[in-house]
């Protein structure tokens, strides 16, 4: 009996995994002829002219890039529209990824030669400090405490905490309607710590997983009622499955996404800020937004750089 139950269980487990993968692929419609850009319309993406003769004297990280000849960039791989890895081709696509390419070109390195490394939220500071990545672009909020560990260029995007709910759910209208509802986010992330510290819902209703995709899966199977994190990330998921998901649209925080750099490398930080400012001025930033996050239908809010 026990064997049979287990066998059935394992079979179902296997099937779920298969369906989950299948869903992920369905959800990322690729434009014909651009199969390598997950969730991103490759045709509308701008190209980035590679700068020549860039030399940043006094930047140890740049010296390392120079000797390696190509860049290693930290990113996230499960955020549709921002940073997502195509499971079949292994290529990364999204707003963050385009920003990473823009910076690479501005530093004089071929954006096509970037090696993207998936770095989970909890491991970011350490990965940057260890020099495992040259810089990190992945919904990385600028905070004062983090500034003590890493440096930030940017912000290149401004987001805010919001809620993703099932389309037919009208009971959740904002953060004050969360009492008694199960709320999910990534383990230890700022949004879930906010839910905990502000008592937006009961402690027993807080659900934490390693990845947002697991939260969304649980939302669709009605085990939880809302996924909370920055609206940019949520819009990506809503755009993937607009028939079943919606973003509430009442942001209740301000998150400024910065490019994570090695601490105290001011030369590199100034250069990256210069590249970002140029893209904001000449319209490249708008093109990137339109080709990625803009497809969710929400208008762009240009960030103001915070140089320090």
């Amino acid at each position, binding site marked *: *009996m*026990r*064997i049979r139950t*287990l066998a059935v*269980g*394992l079979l*179902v*487990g296997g099937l*779920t*995994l298969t369906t989950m993968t299948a869903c992920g692929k369905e959800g990322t419609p690729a434009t014909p002829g651009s199969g390598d850009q997950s969730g991103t319309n490759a045709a509308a993406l701008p190209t980035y002219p590679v700068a020549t003769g860039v030399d940043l004297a006094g930047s140890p990280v740049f010296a390392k890039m120079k000797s390696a000849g190509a860049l290693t960039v930290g990113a996230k791989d499960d955020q549709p529209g921002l940073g997502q890895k195509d499971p079949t081709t292994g290529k990364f696509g999204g707003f963050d990824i385009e920003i990473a390419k823009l910076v690479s070109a501005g530093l004089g390195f071929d954006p096509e030669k970037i090696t993207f490394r998936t770095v989970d*939220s*909890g*491991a*970011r*500071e*350490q990965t940057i400090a260890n020099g495992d990545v040259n810089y990190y672009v992945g919904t990385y909020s600028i*905070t*004062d*405490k*983090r500034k*003590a*560990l890493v440096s930030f260029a940017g912000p290149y995007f401004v987001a805010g905490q919001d809620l993703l709910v099932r389309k037919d759910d009208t009971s959740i209208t904002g953060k004050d309607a969360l009492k008694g509802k199960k709320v*999910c986010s*990534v*383990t*230890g*992330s*700022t949004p879930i*710590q906010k839910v905990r510290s502000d008592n937006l819902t009961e402690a*027993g209703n*807080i*659900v*934490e*997983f*390693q990845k947002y995709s*697991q939260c969304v*899966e649980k939302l669709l*199977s009605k*085990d939880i009622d809302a996924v909370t994190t920055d609206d940019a990330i949520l819009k990506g998921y809503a755009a993937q499955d607009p028939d079943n998901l919606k973003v509430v649209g009442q942001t209740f925080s301000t998150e400024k996404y910065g490019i994570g750099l090695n601490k105290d490398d001011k030369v590199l930080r100034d250069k990256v800020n210069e590249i970002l400012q140029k893209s904001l001025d000449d319209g490249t930033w708008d093109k990137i937004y339109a080709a990625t996050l803009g497809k969710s239908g929400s208008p762009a809010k240009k960030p103001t750089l915070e140089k320090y």
Partner: protein
Amino acid sequence: MDVLLNNLDLFGPFFLRTIELFVLSAVGSLIWGTILAMLRVSPVPVFRAIGTAYVTIARNTPLTLVFAFFVFAYPLLDIVKVDYFPAAVIALTVYTSAFICEVVRSGINTVPVGQAEAGRALGLTFNQILGQVVLPQALRSVVPPLISTLIALLKNTTIAAGFSVAEAGAIRSYLSERGDNQLVGLLWVALGFIILVTVLSFVQRSLEKRWSVAR
């Protein structure tokens, strides 16, 4: 020190959760593991086959997969709704009991066959022989490996952090978002585990002393 003091609201409740998780799963797997061991030595071939199959499957499956099954796949079966903490206890129990079973079985094998035969000659039933003659001696002889398995269980509890149980394994992610030094935080977590394991080692030593028998 600052990392610990500034985040006592993390370390306290999270380690408490780890201990809860450990105690419940330890009790569960000791009971279930002993039952499994009894199945594996029973005179009924079907029971033996069930025990062997269980141990083979549960012991050879990565713990993360066992967790993933109970948290992501099992709810889809729509049988009984299990919350995340009980699910973690079940996953840890299912996994660890296979190891406990083998430890207890090896203990049973240390008891000379003559004792079971003598019991049978006296007219004791199988249950009486196992429960009153063999198991008490078997458990005494396997205290060290039993505690080793429990120590492994204690450390395995950290996997639950990935499946919505706020325990010590999740402290690092929290620290990272708060902007504290994670390496220092991890050292404190390690120290916490060393203290917990020391307690277990102490239990082992005192049990060994108390239960030591001259053979």
